[in-house]
């Protein structure tokens, strides 16, 4: 009995580590390519774009936890939602640091100009800014401390997702294929919640009647 429990625990611990390490793979690949000088003539732009797109992907993975859990009854997914949310913040911070270091070289005049003038950078910065309090309050302790306000605060993730998407769309020069695909995924992630909400309200009303 004790033995099987330990084995189960070990298994689940191994699984946790597996999930924990997965989102680090893109970063490992990027560092490897950068050290091999294999990112082309403009590695700065390549790194900024790569960390940016992975921020968006991890944000979508975070947002996918709830619908997937409900649709497929994968209750185990819930355990990893915070982890994915924190990874989103991690990649977003890398994205900003890469931009500030590799693109503008920490020249404050340029940084301020970019942050205030380029509309898509303003929108992206706002999304990152809003993401920070969610990261800070992601602990059990904060969850307890904030009570019901915690869920309300963390609904900020929806406007953050919309801002991040706008940040991406605003950079289209001619081809909008990628943005269309990401936009459709986000539409489903948010649409699912909206539909559930409306549905719940309807059934609630019926019950009252």
């Amino acid at each position, binding site marked *: 009995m004790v033995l099987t429990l330990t084995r189960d625990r070990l298994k689940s611990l191994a699984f946790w580590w597996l999930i924990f390490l997965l989102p680090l793979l893109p970063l490992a690949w990027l560092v490897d390519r950068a050290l091999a000088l294999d990112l082309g003539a*403009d590695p700065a732009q390549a790194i900024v774009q790569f960390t940016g797109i992975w921020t968006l992907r991890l944000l979508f993975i975070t947002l996918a936890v709830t619908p997937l859990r409900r649709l497929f009854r994968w209750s185990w997914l819930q355990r990893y939602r915070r982890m994915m949310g924190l990874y989103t913040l991690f990649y977003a911070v890398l994205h900003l640091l890469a931009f500030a*270091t590799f693109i503008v070289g920490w020249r404050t005049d340029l940084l301020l100009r970019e942050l205030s003038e380029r509309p898509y950078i303003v929108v992206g910065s706002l999304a990152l800014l809003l993401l920070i309090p969610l990261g800070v309050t992601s602990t059990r302790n904060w969850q307890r401390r904030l009570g019901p306000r915690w869920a309300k605060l963390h609904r900020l993730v929806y406007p953050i997702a919309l801002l991040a998407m706008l940040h991406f769309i605003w950079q289209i020069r001619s081809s909008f294929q990628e943005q269309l695909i990401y936009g459709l995924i986000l539409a489903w992630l948010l649409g699912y919640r909206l539909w559930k909400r409306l549905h719940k309200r309807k059934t609630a009303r019926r019950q009252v009647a």
Partner: protein
Amino acid sequence: MLIKRPDPIKSSEITPESIYRNRRLFLKGLAGTAALALSEGAAAIPAYNLDKDAPQYPGPDWLQQQLRAGVRNEALSTAENPAPYVNVITHNNFYEFGTGKQDPSRKAQNFKTDPWRVEIAGEVEKPGSYNLEDLLRPHTLEERVYRLRCVEAWSMVIPWMGFPLGDLLKRFGPTSRAKYVAFTTLLDPEQMPGQGGFFSTLDWPYIEGLRMDEAMHPLTLLTVGLYGNALPPQNGAPFRLVVPWKYGFKSIKSIVRIELTETMPDTTWNLTAPNEYGFYANVNPKVDHPRWSQATERRLPSSLFSPRIIDTQPFNGYGDQVASLYSGIDLRKWF
């Protein structure tokens, strides 16, 4: 005893060195173009040590001969270091082969560039369709090292080989009605996967244009070579334009048609987003793109921890030669 005090005004403040040097270079350049074979502006093409692992593009025999007979136009070349060959052939905006910077170098390798026909049309005395070989034959190829400034705020220094567009146009006798030149890129979705894309806002074929005086300017180069070799397909082989004082998108690639017109031609990016891309598209640090600043540029290849951020120069540093073309024009309105 004579006590020497420092001058209150440094001589460099009276006339910046870059300006007077440029002016001399320009005069020398004009002379050089007129009589290149004899002039002091001409020099041998340097023997480039191209990366052996990088693909080489020798080009067809007839072109190789002409490239070998080429001379370097020192006077119209910048002394700045060219970007490494491998960077020039793998960092391309050539949306006919995809929108990623490395897409053209991956997808254009089977692009058929020989034989190649070019149509000369419109307001000329001798219109017609010609083999590229015949079009090129009378011209001495010149190497010119130019700065290329992309509208996306990066830049590169590139050694091109070509000859002045004006020399070609003169041969076909522009009529008095010729006010503009319109250029067209090949339309061939089978070879150019980007033209078949459903998700692009651009209309194909790609069209660019110049005013007649811009086209006749000695800096405006019809280009067939790069780094002493033929143009690689991803760089616009076999025949492209290079207009160094304008944003890169004006320098149209893989040209199949040159038409002289009386009215300003509709150009591809201008049609797609007229508020973002003007017909003139002169490099101008004072006129921002609506979505980003044009005041500075990143000189490629970039090194990660010390990005080479430099101030963008009006007309990409060719102002002494070309600013007079636009005297009396509001460059904010005609961006």
